[in-house]
């Protein structure tokens, strides 16, 4: 079984992104192959240099940095969305693969989950 977890909403506006990430970490904890795809406004999760202090929240950047430790297989970002939000590799977390979020990508997974 392989699962793709999709985050398509900007961070900090609601809790669903964090709860989506928890799903990915749970799969990894139970040794199930899981990858994360950021698309749409969700690519803003990948911005480097976030500061959550005034929000009194841990940054999602920090949450995400735990992904490889938990055993999440890949962090992927949709190329078109990165362009729309003017994110380039220099301004992003390390270790993100740029992909086209299209049918061929989704077909590689048995389950695709997006909250």
């Amino acid at each position, binding site marked *: 079984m392989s699962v793709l977890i999709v985050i398509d909403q900007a961070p900090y506006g609601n*809790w669903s992104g964090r*709860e989506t990430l928890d*799903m990915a970490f*749970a*799969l990894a904890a*139970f040794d199930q192959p899981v990858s994360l795809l950021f698309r749409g406004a969700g690519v803003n999760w990948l911005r480097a240099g976030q500061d959550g202090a005034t929000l009194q929240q841990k940054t999602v950047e920090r949450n995400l940095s735990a992904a490889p430790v938990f055993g999440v297989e890949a962090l992927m970002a949709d190329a078109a969305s990165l362009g729309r939000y003017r994110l380039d590799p220099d301004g992003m977390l390390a270790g993100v693969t740029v992909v086209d979020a299209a049918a061929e990508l989704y077909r590689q997974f048995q*389950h695709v989950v997006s*909250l």
Partner: protein
Amino acid sequence: MPSEQTLSYTLVITGAPYASQAPQTALEFARAAVAAGHGIERVFLYGDGVYLASTLNCPPSDEPNWTRAWSEFLETGGIPGIACIASALRRGIVDESEQQRYQLSACNLATPFALAGLGEWVEGLTRSSRVMYFHGGA
């Protein structure tokens, strides 16, 4: 005609009752699946979906009580209903043991729901033939 293969379903509800259509749509789906001979293996409440498991939901008498409707459906079918414990505690859905653990003034988890971790969802993914998600929408 489609094949007569019977399927087992895990249903994941992430939308809250009275704020979204998710619990009602999921219940209609579950009833239809059972009527067609399929099985509901488990129902997993996640995110705002955990509000369905509050026994304190108290809609006006001329509106459906989705918590009661779901409880009856689960009890009749002997289907496990699980609310994600992390989602539930954040939102004030608490069973007796969590009430004691956190020394809270009350507990409100509706019967027959139980609190458990995301492992229950992972098990649903690996064991059920299909997993259906019922979201609240943006």
